[in-house]
């Protein structure tokens, strides 16, 4: 028998908000649902998902377990050509899903030009462009080489990279060192001072840091990130605390093992003056953690979200190396003086790997200091994080948010939930000028575009059908 008349009325209101306002006014316990239609409604796709519900669920459990259990350590440094799998002299790695020269956006082209000059493969920008377009240079996504790069994400053979190891899975990941703000290669700048800084990083910063890391032994980066989240970072758009913690960890070794005092000072000042120094590490941490969850059949967990400035790409645990893409959107941003949305390049960079790992925009509730990027309201920041719990499979066991009573960050994006609930992953990010070489013009937020997620869901169901047929 229905107990409705015997119990206190408690209402879930799906639709017109005014109905719920009435209930609130009458002191009725109620919850308003911000309902939206699913991004994609295809009965065949839904049927496949429904029939394989249990398999998908247990596959996702396994994916998430591997992501959460990752033990990422910084174990050393090396030259790209020596350490990155598949790296070649005529190969440039780039951010995001695969793209050729023709379709590259301004900042990525600029970074390609800069890298070719830096490598001595072209004497000047004009020759560099010709070479890039000639077909003699190969392009490949960082992600396909266990690597991640912010913004244009260009990695060439002689660039020094950090080496990270996930002690749990044995997997490795690589990432360049962060160049700082202003005119930098990752935003497509290629002037002489940019190339000179890269050379200094290769010749001075790299050897110094390499020795210091080797001497101090492996560095627990997960621990640094967990602490940084308690200190106001979300380690995508704010890395001040994490950089400081890293600095504290590495400084003694630098001082101790650098023969030339001035070199030590120079290196320490470089790290200290760049609040984003840790960004490339937090990205590599995320990469090496998520790669552990790759290739689990039936799993709908996202292991990559990455943008090349033209396309936004997604990879799933259950669909191997396949990319699912759609046009990359322009972020809503707070622009530096003199710039506007007109100047902005569509979203670019591998840095959204942090969101994929439950950091960045997903952890923005931990980072009240950067709320002006999300509308200036702390509540908005909290809400963004809260909303991401709708589309994730787990709460992080290590990354926790003080303001939410140390609730774990939403981790492990489930593409099925994204499509079903029409809630898209939230990313907070830097914004590049659409022309090469101008650099960062703002920072802001965006929701990932829907198309890659819809395509990924279709891809997953196709893959599941293939497994069934075998």
């Amino acid at each position, binding site marked *: 028998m229905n107990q409705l*008349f015997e119990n*206190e009325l408690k209402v*879930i209101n*799906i639709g017109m908000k005014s*109905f719920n306002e009435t209930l609130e006014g009458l002191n009725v316990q109620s919850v308003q*649902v911000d309902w939206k239609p699913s991004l994609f409604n295809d009965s065949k796709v839904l049927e496949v998902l429904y029939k394989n519900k249990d398999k998908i669920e247990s596959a996702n459990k396994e994916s998430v377990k591997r992501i959460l259990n990752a033990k990422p350590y910084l174990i050393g440094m090396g030259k790209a050509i020596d350490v990155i799998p598949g790296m070649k002299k005529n190969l440039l790695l780039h951010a995001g899903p695969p793209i050729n020269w023709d379709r590259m956006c301004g900042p990525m082209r600029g970074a390609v030009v800069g890298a070719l000059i830096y490598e001595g493969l072209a004497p000047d920008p004009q020759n560099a462009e010709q070479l890039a377009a000639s077909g003699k240079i190969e392009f490949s996504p960082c992600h396909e080489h266990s690597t991640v790069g912010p913004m244009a994400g260009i990695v060439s053979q002689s660039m020094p990279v950090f080496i990270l190891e996930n002690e749990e899975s044995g997997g490795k990941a690589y990432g360049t060192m962060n160049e700082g703000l202003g005119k930098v290669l990752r935003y497509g700048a290629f002037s002489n001072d940019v190339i000179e800084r890269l050379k200094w990083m290769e010749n001075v910063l790299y050897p110094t840091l390499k020795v210091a890391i080797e001497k101090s032994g492996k560095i627990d980066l997960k621990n640094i990130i967990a602490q940084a989240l308690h200190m106001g970072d979300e380690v995508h758009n704010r890395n001040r605390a994490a950089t400081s913690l890293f600095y504290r960890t590495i400084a003694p070794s630098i001082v101790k093992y650098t023969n030339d005092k001035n070199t030590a000072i120079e290196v320490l000042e470089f790290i200290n003056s760049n609040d984003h120094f840790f960004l490339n590490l937090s990205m590599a941490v995320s990469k090496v953690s998520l790669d552990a969850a790759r290739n689990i059949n039936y799993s709908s967990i996202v292991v990559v979200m990455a943008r090349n400035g033209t396309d936004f790409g997604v990879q799933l645990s259950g669909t191997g190396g396949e990319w699912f893409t759609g046009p990359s959107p322009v972020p809503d941003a707070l622009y530096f003086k003199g710039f506007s949305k007109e100047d902005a390049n569509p979203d670019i960079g591998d840095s959204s790997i942090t969101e994929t790992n439950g950091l960045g925009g997903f952890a923005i509730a931990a980072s009240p200091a950067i709320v002006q990027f999300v509308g200036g309201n702390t509540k908005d920041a909290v809400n963004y994080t809260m909303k991401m719990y709708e589309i994730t499979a787990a709460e992080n066991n290590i990354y926790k948010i003080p303001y939410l009573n140390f609730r774990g960050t939403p981790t492990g994006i489930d593409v099925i939930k994204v499509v079903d609930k029409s809630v898209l992953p939230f990313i907070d990010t830097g914004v590049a000028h659409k022309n090469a070489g101008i650099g960062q013009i703002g920072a802001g937020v965006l929701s990932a575009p829907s198309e890659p997620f819809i395509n990924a869901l279709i891809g997953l169901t196709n893959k599941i059908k293939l497994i069934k047929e075998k």
Partner: protein
Amino acid sequence: MKVSGIVKKGEYFDSVSIMLIAKRLSGFKDIIDSAVLMGTKENLSVLKSSGLLIPEFKAVGEMDLLIVFKTEDNADIPGLLKSIDILLKPDKGQSEDNHLNPSSLESAVSILPGANLAMISIAGRYAGDVAMKSLQNSLNVMLFSDNVPIDKEIELKTFAADKGLFVMGPDCGTAIINGIPLAFANVVNRGNIGIVGASGTGLQEVSCIISNSGCGVSQAIGTGGRDVKKEVGGIMFLQGLQALADDRNTDVILLVSKPPAKEVIEKIKDVVKKINKPVVSVFLGSSPELLYGSKIHAASTLEEAALLAVALSQNQPVTNVKGITAVQDVEIKEAARIESAKLNPEHKYLRALFSGGTFCDETQLLCNEVLTEVYSNTPVGNAKKLKDSAKSEKHTIIDLGDDEFTVGKPHPMIDYSTRCKRIIEEAEDPETAVILLDIVLGYGSNMNPLAEIIPVIRKVKEITSAHGHHLPIVCSVTGTDKDPQNRTSVVTALQSEGVIVMKSNAAASRLAILISYSKGVK
């Protein structure tokens, strides 16, 4: 005249945003007619029939928002488009005090343990699935949405009946559960009369009359109009009836509906046989013979039904009701005599403009024995179908809440603009003898109806006195003094503008019919 419009591709707006945009748009002084709606097939055909389909809408899909408006040729279209663009921008101010709402039913259930009712008012093509999910989560459902396919309704109700859950709706506008008014409902006294209603306005009217008579309502269960049709077979109507029979706080049961299918009436009679509580029914337009042999107290108007229930709930003889109505009839006849004496011979016709669909039916049925040549956009009884719903003929009784008036616009209980325009048109027609209106108060309805209606009443007076004649306006006000609009203050304000306000739609209809009738025979 010029029709302009824009398409917002793939942009989802919830129904409230659409309603707000539509309401603001109709407030622009350069805009003669407008619609804001999603590009579904049904909506496109409605646009076509109302002459608002423009070439830009050729390739739209159901996820596209369409905005279309009619202006004079010389209107500033770019300016209007710019203003519309501003209307479409999300209201940034909203984030000031926002607490985060969950995005899914599952999350809502985890936030609100013990939730027992899902109120669903999203677009009909999605509402059925969300309702099913709610039932699977053991929630009762109030389905406000319309345009839910009938197969889906049957599936939902069969599933719910099996689990002992309610599905109120689809197209259920009103319910009162445990004293709480839901959606379009009034704040009524709690008491011992339980109501099952397949008609929203009907349910509002009886609950208000009961409350205004000093009695109260235990539960008011809406079922949606289709429930009592043959296809659905009264699944929820019968379940509601049984639930009230079992409810320890209900002593009298009142059934309100437009005519149920014969089979459903038979089932109702079977259930009532086993119920040890008095049952009153008002099945507007249903033949009284169908209830012969049953102990059901059958009423022919909503008011009569409410008064019967009131009498029974106070253990008074039902014959008392006859006495009350007899006294009222005398008063109505006297008022009609006074009003019709002021009219000129050419003022012959009743023009009734309703926001409540059930009232439109009730009034047509009351015309049956008195007036001939009655027309309606939704004819029942002896009334005939209007050729053009936008143009009155002879005695005309209009339901402005019908789809043809509401696609792309808020319901007339919220947005009075369509009705206000029509009132002026009727006032300008020299054949109009009397205008009959309903004003429905309560939650969901317009919070300040006086601001909408009083300027129009004054305009009517200007028009008629310019022509040197009198035009009575008769009105019922469905509501209580506990409603946010307060019935007494609304009634007083209307009376001070010369409007004749009656206690019920039945009484108002009788008066208006008599005024036009006495003119007709003169």
